[in-house]
């Protein structure tokens, strides 16, 4: 649907080199990067509002980088929405169809169903100044979708919203995508947002594409420390491959004298013995063992003894900061409230934890 190659943007002190991305028809693709990483500039280059230094852009079969924005058939919802304040909601929505001199007739049914899905029937005669934040977002999305664009670009559609409105818009975007299957490229700096809505995502840090993939591929298998850090992942440790076992199906990773048994599937490449790698322990997959309770065979490989340093109640779950006795490796463990109530934990208490295979991931 859309393909970008070798996109190079130089603007003042900002440099972006050889950016590439590919988005399939109907895909909801997220472009994730920290603030100021150039996400908006990339969007503007795709639309044709910014002339990049270099690069090719295809939409469908057509190379578009020489076309003016109005011929690219890309709709755009900027972060500040930019609803036309001098036009009513209805006129805002119909702007694109009118601008292209298309007949309103042929769009009637489609726009009507959009209006219904977006629940804006009662707003049509109002002006943008009289809409609430969530209503504005809905109208802006509707305006962008009305002329049936080949591609829809969203610039941080969920940031800066009150949590309740945020939730509403999330739901709406989901519904919208399942009902109308537009091809969407959405920019954000919030991974959780991307995880919730996106099919695929491109993570983009310091001018470099760090990882492209399905949302779970990224979340469960971050390809680098930078990605992990960007996703807000904790419990990262540098270790070294000591040996392999179980017919090379598992490796033993040594960290501070402790031995972690990691399934080989946790790394796509081959790892020789002696190689240094980052281990990531997923907090919500660590199990705190209840005294006296039996443990499944598969969990016995990675059992560590340690002490509880801190307990934080995070409302929907608790976070326990645990530190191994040997090696003094601290890691965070996240446990559901009902489990926490049963465990009778307190700061300073000695406990044993078991690491499920799902909790382990290595990175180069």
């Amino acid at each position: 649907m859309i393909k970008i190659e070798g996109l190079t943007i130089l603007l003042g002190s900002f440099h972006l080199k050889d950016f590439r991305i590919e988005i399939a028809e109907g895909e909801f693709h997220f472009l994730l990067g920290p603030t100021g990483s150039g996400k908006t500039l990339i969007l503007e280059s795709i639309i044709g509002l910014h002339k990049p230094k270099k690069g090719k852009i295809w939409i469908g079969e057509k190379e578009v980088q020489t076309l003016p924005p109005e011929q690219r058939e890309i709709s755009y919802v900027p972060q500040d929405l930019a609803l036309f304040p001098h036009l009513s909601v209805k006129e805002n929505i119909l702007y694109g169809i009118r601008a292209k001199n298309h007949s309103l007739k042929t769009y009637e049914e489609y726009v009507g169903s959009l209006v219904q899905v977006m629940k804006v029937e009662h707003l049509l005669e109002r002006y943008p100044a009289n809409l609430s934040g969530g209503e504005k977002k809905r109208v802006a999305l509707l305006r962008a979708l009305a002329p049936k664009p080949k591609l829809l670009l969203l610039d941080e559609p969920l940031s800066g919203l009150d949590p309740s409105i945020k939730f509403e818009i999330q739901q709406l975007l989901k519904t919208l995508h399942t009902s109308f299957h537009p091809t969407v490229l959405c920019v954000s700096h919030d991974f959780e947002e991307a995880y919730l809505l996106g099919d695929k995502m491109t993570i983009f840090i310091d001018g470099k594409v760090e990882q492209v993939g399905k949302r779970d591929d990224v979340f469960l298998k971050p390809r680098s420390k930078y990605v992990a850090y960007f996703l807000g992942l904790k419990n990262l440790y540098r270790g070294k491959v000591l040996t392999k076992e179980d017919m090379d199906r598992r490796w033993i990773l040594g960290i501070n004298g402790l031995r972690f048994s990691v399934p080989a599937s946790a790394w796509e490449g081959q790892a020789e013995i002696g190689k240094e790698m980052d281990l990531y322990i997923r907090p919500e997959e660590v199990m705190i063992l209840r005294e006296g309770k039996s443990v499944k065979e598969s969990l016995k490989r990675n059992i560590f003894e340690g002490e509880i340093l801190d307990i934080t109640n995070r409302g929907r779950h608790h976070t326990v900061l645990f530190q191994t006795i040997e090696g003094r490796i601290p890691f965070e463990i996240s446990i559901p409230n009902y489990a926490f109530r049963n465990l009778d934990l307190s700061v300073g208490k000695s406990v044993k934890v078991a690491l499920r295979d799902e909790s382990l991931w290595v990175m180069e």
Partner: protein
Amino acid sequence: MTFRYTMIGAAIFIFIFYFVLLASLLFSASLKGFWESLLHPSTLFSIRLSLIAATIATLLAVAIGLPSAYALSRFEFRGKRIVDTFLEIPIIMSPIALGASFLVFFNTPIGETIQRKGIFFVFEFPGILLAQFATIAGLATRLMKASLDEISPRYEAVARSLGSSSWQAFYRVTLPLSFRGLLASVILSWAKAAGEFGATVTLAGAMPGKTETMPVAIFTALASANIEKAIVLILILVFLGLVALYAVRFTGKIYRYD
């Protein structure tokens, strides 16, 4: 709160300063002389001439200044800073110097050719337009640029992504959105054109019944020792200006932008 009162006091001082000036004009005008001078054909001519000339000059300044303002507000181009600097030429240049420069210009081979082959400016109506245009073009561009700067370029961006050409985005979106601000700029420029004296009198001359605009008429009234008439003319000019200023204030913003 002495800080606050000191600061506001200064603002009130400026107000009183200009107010007293206007009040003393009113105080000195005689009612009888007022109607007489006002209804005198030459006064009526000057009023009409000033209105027409200022209006045409303003239209010209808008015709050229609006696109310039747009370019300065939205585009980066080589020499932008120099262009921007030159907009202030009429501010730094004494009007009389501006007018004299025109006379000098029309004395050069190019200027002569323009007058011979095209329009006669010197001592003619077009001269008034030229003098007023030169005086306000910079200001008008500056003010309109400020109005356009207030409109987020995202509106145009969205309009274009929805299929409008850059022209359409300009007149369907940017223009209506900045309309009030532009109007205020235009009115202010108009008032300045209507008050232009030095350049007009130098280039177009003080020709009664031909190029004698209001400020020029004030000058000739003063110069021929007709003070009553001068005061009346000043009052009329100030009145026109105040009406214009009021119009500017009145053109508050309609739309709240988000």
